[in-house]
Each structure stands twice: as C-alpha cells, then as structure tokens.
C-alpha cells in the first residue's frame, strides 16, 4: 500500500536533508535512494524535488557544484552545509516530537477502541 503522500508533504525538507547528510548526491540519486530506503513503497513526485533543493540552496542549507560523471555528462551535485545540518537537527526534533504526539494520541485511541 502506498503511504499517503499528504502525511509527508511538510516533511520533504527533512527527507532531502537526511538524504544529503551522509554524502553529496545529485538529483536522481536522491530519488533512487528514497525509493530504495522505502522499499519502493514511497514515490515522491520527482519534479517537486527541484523546487525544494533550490529553495534550500537559497536559504544556504545546501550548496551546489558540478562534477563530471564517468559517462561524460556534467551533473549538478548538492551538498549539505553546516547551516543545513542545523536545520536538519531542528526538523528532526520537530518531527520526533510531532510523531511522539501522534503516537500518544493514536495509542489512546487504540486503547478506547479495543474491546475492554
């Protein structure tokens, strides 16, 4: 079953930064990594990746450079910056507290729904 993309709409920044944290990547590489990590159950509309990358670049959270691939094509790589790492931490803790809250409410709901 495909996860509802709505749940994750606001957290694509977190996803992108998390993908870049271990190392620099170019656009398609990020999509591929995302699919791999989610066992192909998660597909992000690839086009929306670039507006996010560009806005992060404008904020200074990522920086871009070009590298030539072995095939001869020039690829635009993105790298996370120290500012980006701070942003990642911020989003991560935000996400953790959000998911804790959601889990707590869901657990409560489960408790109420299960037959006593």
């Amino acid at each position, binding site marked *: 079953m495909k996860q509802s993309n709505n749940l994750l709409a606001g957290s694509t920044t977190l996803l992108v930064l998390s993908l870049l944290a271990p190392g620099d990547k*170019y*656009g*398609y*590489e990020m*999509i*591929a990594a995302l699919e791999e990590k989610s066992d192909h159950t998660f*597909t992000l*509309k*690839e*086009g*929306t990746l*670039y*507006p996010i990358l*560009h*806005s992060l670049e*404008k904020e200074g959270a990522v920086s871009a450079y070009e590298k030539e691939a072995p095939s001869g*094509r*020039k*690829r*635009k790589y993105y790298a996370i910056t120290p500012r980006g790492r701070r942003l990642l931490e911020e989003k991560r803790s935000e996400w953790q507290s959000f998911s804790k809250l959601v889990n707590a409410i869901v657990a409560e709901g489960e408790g109420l729904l299960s037959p006593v």
Partner: protein
Amino acid sequence: MTIPDYCAAVCRFVRFSPDHAAITAELTAHLEDAVGARESRGVPHEQAVVQAVDAMGDPAEVGKALDALHSPLLGWVQIWVRRVLVLCAVLMLLPALTGLWTLSKTFVPQEHPAQWQSTQTGEALPGLPIRNAAKHSGYTLSLWDGVRDGDTVALLVRLEHFSPWLRSPSEWAFQSLTVTDNVGSTYINWATAQEAHLEEFQVYASSNGRYDTFFSTYFTLTVYNVPPEADILTFTLAQSGEPFSFSLPLNGGDGHA
C-alpha cells in the same frame, strides 16, 4: 511528452527567462538518468521516457514552484547592473591605463633635488637638510638645501603631504612670508612690495616643479641683502590663523636661536 517538451512546459511558468537554461539542464539530466535506470531494467526506450516524465509530475506545479523562488525583478536588476558594470570597466580600461601610467610618473621627480645646488651660485650652507622643521595644516616642511652667495641666501624648502587633496600647494602660500634675522635687518617680501607699490624687495619665493613628486613640492626662497654678521634667518608665515615659523642657521647648528 518528450524530455525537451516537458522542460519547456515547466519553463513556461518560470517568468525569469535567464534561469530557463539552467532549469532545463538540470531537469534533462534527471530525466535522462531516470530513463537510463528504467532501460537497464528492461523497459523499452519509448515507454521509459513516458514513465520518467510521468514520475516527474505536473509541469505546471513544478514550474510554479520554481517561479516562486526566482524573483524576476531582482534578477533582471542584478543582470543589468552587472552588464553596466562590465561595460564601464571595458570603457574605462584604456583611460585607466593611461591615467595610471601618468600618475605613476608623478611619483618620481623629473630631476633629483640634489641637482638644485648646481643651479645656484655660492657655497652650500652647512647643517642641511633639516627635516620636519615645521608642520602646518597637513604639510611637513623641511629645509632641504641652501647656498649663500655673498649677501644672498637661497633656500630650497620641501613641503611634504600625505593627502591627495593637498597636492600642488601654491607659490602664493608664501605671499605672507616675513623674514627676520638675529641682527635686526628688515626684509620685505615681494608680494608686500607689490601691494604697497614699493620698488625693492628682499624676499622672493618661486617654484619650478622639476623636483616635485605627487607627495612633495619644492620651493626656492631667495633672500637678498643678508648682512655677513647674520647667523640665523627666521621665516614666518602668518597668513593663516596659526602662524608658524622655521629658522635657517647660516653657519651650521640646529636652527634654534
């Protein structure tokens, strides 16, 4: 939709046209990678292209999101400002080189001030140069060289300054020069004589510019009718609010009476 068509569709929503090339390049690279990945899984080329383009999503959505990020006004302003700057730099190149060349020549005098003495008659005055004999409104005055020929004393004075706005001090700065000596003679300045319609004067200042550089100007002060018993000539400039003076020892010494 082909890859170029998709890119064009996205770019249609991006108002700032100079960015279209970069956006097209990036999206094309991504789509080609996507097509390549599918082809390596065995998908035929045509279908791979269709799938890759679909996976990208609605070009309008992508285009509008990108457009929101790139302000056209600021972008155009920056581009035009840069063009104007580059144009100015190109136009200024030739005059800049000639101007800087001419300027660099002013840092070196046409003739060395040591040559001054050979243009004068008489014996050199001992004890010179006396540097920093006086300081006034940004200038530092030094008594550079001097000769005494009978009853005529000629003194080469150097005015140094640092600020470019003080360059070329005027000969007329010495208009108010008064000279006294230690035996009470009177010396009349040429400018005073002119104003008072007097025939004779004993003090004259001139400058020929040959030894001048950008930061220093040389003046020759000539004093006539100096009696043999005079040991010190004191020059006073009183035209400004703070008069200042310097002394020239005629027989060596450090210039203090």
